């Protein structure tokens, strides 16, 4: 691959961190690249190292009701413990399913024996009924779900699913509304009071309302429902809080589509729908994505809070549970959760940045 | 005549060159640029964009290091920027939070640190008056048209009483009519005060109207002086008289032909258009 292509890919992926390494590898102005590496790599590493050092020193001096403040090393250990627990739990689950399968097989064998007797003309009454009963029991045994506690990794996955559903709902509402607001001043004025009043509302205030409404309206029996109630509650709370940035950015992006593009549409005689599809939305795309990026960030923060408050499964609940249990590892595990939340938030943001880069139509400068 | 010429020589650029080190090797932008100017003379450097003419000007201004040769102004070799040279750039670059008056005052205070407040205000007022902004002292850049902003830029440069005025495409951002208007303002001031000025431009008519001599630069890399034209129009210069001078369109044709010959696109067809 040529140097330009690598550099361009790096820029699109927003990995400018690696740029000096690549340039150095291609032997370009080594002194300058080394200085850049020092700035971009060594300085952040050094500052993080200082932070860890200060933390380690301070930890032993802070006494909490759960013991002394855990050091970074202890937090690291707990992360390992949480992962090990996850694997152990998965192992237990696998064992459980294996045991169930064995039991089911035994039951089926017994059923087969009874059925065989009946086939050979054994006159004992109810043999066939018993065989059917055993087969039924075997089916149930096989179908039985493992009901162990969710592990740390499970909680992470639940949180991610929840935030994505909420984000999706928010986007599906906010983008069309935003486009209409941007196109029509009348519509924007009609929507404006809701935006102004609901935008600053904390997720904690929405949560009870959402819980009550979901409880009242989402009456599908649990075994037929696609989603659990708690999942829907969290996702809707996320959606309610995270739709505003997308709505406002979309409206702004659409209303600031250059006048000349509208003039072009007029001169070309494009229909309203073609104009929206071919000109307005592509032109507003970078702004829309900027809004989505903020929305996803907000959604992730809101989610943790709502999970904590509503005791809905996810990382928030994990933290709350740890806080309630109060074992000696509690504090360290909460800190693991904090770092996890931060890291996932960062990754989500990166993903959005990349998407934003891909839809923005700036000329790529090599 | 040659003797007196040397005696009156005020600005001398000798064997001036500029080159950069790049990963692809040494890149020569300008090489062997020679020019002498008398006091009170107006010289225009004309060339295609990217030919290095602005590089020459910024070396004279002391804003760009000299790679080869040197620059002597008033018998002193220059090494960096100084108040003896005033520069007007293409963008007026005024400070948006200061009024026209304060923008000009900013430099005056540096050059005349010991003058009384009244004396300094007098200098500022005089120069704003010169550029025709006598009644716009208190306006901020945002309240001025681009043409008026550039007038402030010229007043700011003149108020420092530089011995040499350097103009880097000063009217490049203005429309043709405003450009002509500012050319009229500029030539009137320069002729009345007998200032020495060096201007970089790519506008043929601008160079012909303002300059006593025109330096035609070849296109870079390794740009140098291609031709030196004497402009024979009488002072004071008036637009109608200059345009109707029998030599005007001949000179214009000659310059355009020179520029067409040195069209960088023709020479390097491999470069993207």
């Amino acid at each position, binding site marked *: 691959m040529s140097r330009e292509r690598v550099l361009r890919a790096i820029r699109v992926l927003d990995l400018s961190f690696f740029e000096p390494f690549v340039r150095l590898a291609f032997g370009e102005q080594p002194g300058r690249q080394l200085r850049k590496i020092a700035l971009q790599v060594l300085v952040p590493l050094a500052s993080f190292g200082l932070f860890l050092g200060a933390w380690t020193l301070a930890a032993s001096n802070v006494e909490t009701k759960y013991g002394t403040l855990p050091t970074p090393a202890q937090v690291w250990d707990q992360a390992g413990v949480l992962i090990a627990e996850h694997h152990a739990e998965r192992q237990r689950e696998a064992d459980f399913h294996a045991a169930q399968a064995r039991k089911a097989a035994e039951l089926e064998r017994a059923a087969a024996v009874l059925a065989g007797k009946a086939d050979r003309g054994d006159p004992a009454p109810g043999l066939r009924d018993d065989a059917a009963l055993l087969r039924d029991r075997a089916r149930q045994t096989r179908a039985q779900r493992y009901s162990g506690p969710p592990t740390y990794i499970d909680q992470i996955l639940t949180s991610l699913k929840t935030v994505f559903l909420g984000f999706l709902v928010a986007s599906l509402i906010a983008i069309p509304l935003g486009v209409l607001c941007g196109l029509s001043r009348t519509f924007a004025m009609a929507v404006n009071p809701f935006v102004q009043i609901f935008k600053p509302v904390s997720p904690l205030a929405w949560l009870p309302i959402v819980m009550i409404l979901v409880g009242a309206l989402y009456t599908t029996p649990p075994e037929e429902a696609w989603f659990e109630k708690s999942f829907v509650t969290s996702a809707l709370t996320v959606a309610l809080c995270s739709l505003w940035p997308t709505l406002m950015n979309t409206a702004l992006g659409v209303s600031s589509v250059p006048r000349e593009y509208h*003039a072009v549409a007029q001169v070309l005689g494009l229909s309203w729908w073609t104009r929206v599809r071919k000109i307005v939305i592509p032109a507003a795309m970078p702004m829309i994505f900027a809004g989505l990026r903020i929305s996803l960030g907000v959604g992730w923060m809101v989610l943790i809070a709502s999970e904590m408050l509503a005791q809905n499964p996810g990382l928030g609940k994990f933290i709350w549970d740890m806080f309630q249990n109060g074992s000696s590892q509690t504090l360290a595990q909460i800190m693991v959760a904090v770092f996890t939340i931060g890291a996932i938030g960062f990754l989500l943001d990166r993903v959005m940045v990349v998407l934003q880069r891909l839809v923005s139509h700036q000329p790529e400068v090599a | 005549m040659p003797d007196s010429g040397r005696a009156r020589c005020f600005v001398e650029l000798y064997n001036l060159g500029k080159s950069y080190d790049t990963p692809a090797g040494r890149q020569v932008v300008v090489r062997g640029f020679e020019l002498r100017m008398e006091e009170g003379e107006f010289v225009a450097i004309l060339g295609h964009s990217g030919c290095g003419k602005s590089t020459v000007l910024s070396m004279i201004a002391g804003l760009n290091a000299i790679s080869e040769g040197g620059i002597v102004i008033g018998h002193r070799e220059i090494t960096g920027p100084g108040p003896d040279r005033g520069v007007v750039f293409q963008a007026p670059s005024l400070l948006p939070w200061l009024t026209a008056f304060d923008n000009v005052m900013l430099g005056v205070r540096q050059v005349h640190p010991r003058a009384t407040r009244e004396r300094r205000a007098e200098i500022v007022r005089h120069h704003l008056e010169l550029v025709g902004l006598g009644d716009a002292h208190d306006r901020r850049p945002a309240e001025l048209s681009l043409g008026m902003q550039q007038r402030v830029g010229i007043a700011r440069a003149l108020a420092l009483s530089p011995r040499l005025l350097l103009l880097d495409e000063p009217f490049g951002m203005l429309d043709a*009519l405003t450009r002509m208007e500012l050319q009229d303002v500029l030539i009137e001031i320069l002729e009345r005060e007998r200032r020495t000025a060096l201007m970089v431009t790519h506008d043929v008519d601008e160079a012909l109207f303002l300059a006593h001599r025109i330096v035609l630069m070849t296109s870079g890399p390794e740009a140098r002086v291609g031709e030196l034209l004497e402009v024979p129009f009488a002072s004071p210069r008036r637009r109608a008289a200059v345009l109707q001078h029998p030599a005007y*369109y*001949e000179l214009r044709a000659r310059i355009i032909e020179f520029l067409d010959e040195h069209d960088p696109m023709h020479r390097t067809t491999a470069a993207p258009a």
Partner: protein
Amino acid sequence: MALIELRGVGKTFPTVAGATEVLRGVDLTVAEGEFVAIVGFSGSGKSTLMSILAGLLRPDAGEVRVDGQPVRGAGPDRALVFQTYALLPWLSVRDNVRLAVDAAFPGWTAARRRAHVDEHVAMVGLAAAAGKRPGELSGGMRQRVAVARALAMDPRILLLDEPLGALDALTRGTLQAEIARIWAVTRKTVVMITNDVEEALVLADRVIVLEPGPRAHLGPSFAVPLPRPRVRAALNHDPAFAGLRNQILLHLTESRARRAGAARKVTHA
């Protein structure tokens, strides 16, 4: 027979300082197949005039007729080329042109539309760059795309709003020759606004001065009897060119000076 007719056209815009009358009493007649250049400078109301011709703005006074019919809005019979190119940056050269062709000829088969697009991209010499996006093109190439897009609609009238204003002198010269060549082939009726007197003289049959606003109106009209094709380099040796250019330039500077003088008197009164 006049193809374009403007009678007493006026336009007023509301501003913070009250209503500003940008245009007043603009009269213009353009014959079919004629190339008319209007020379005006920034703030002279030329963009407003162009928008009215294109049907993007409605005049407050007077009327605009094309082929005898009053203009009620933008239409595919009048294609406008913007100074800023107004290309859609997310579409390739070909797709920018296609957008116009699809809108102008919905009844055509896909194959015919594709051929029409390719023909016009090739006409402006961009066949090799058809797949590129505007961001990858130079200013001159972008303006070629804009011209191709306008011509591909096969309009009766081509409106050029300072088409070369944002380009450097060299590229301007090249594109002027290009426009002259295309005009010689297509013989569209063209109204061009420019601030470059020389450009007007190179291209147009007639040059009209737009006396600057507020209350801009059309000033004297100069017929350009110079033989075609007009080669820029040779024109400087042509006394007729020099005479016309001086006449127009001096008229412009004098009318500007008169206006400035009048304005000064008003403020002092």
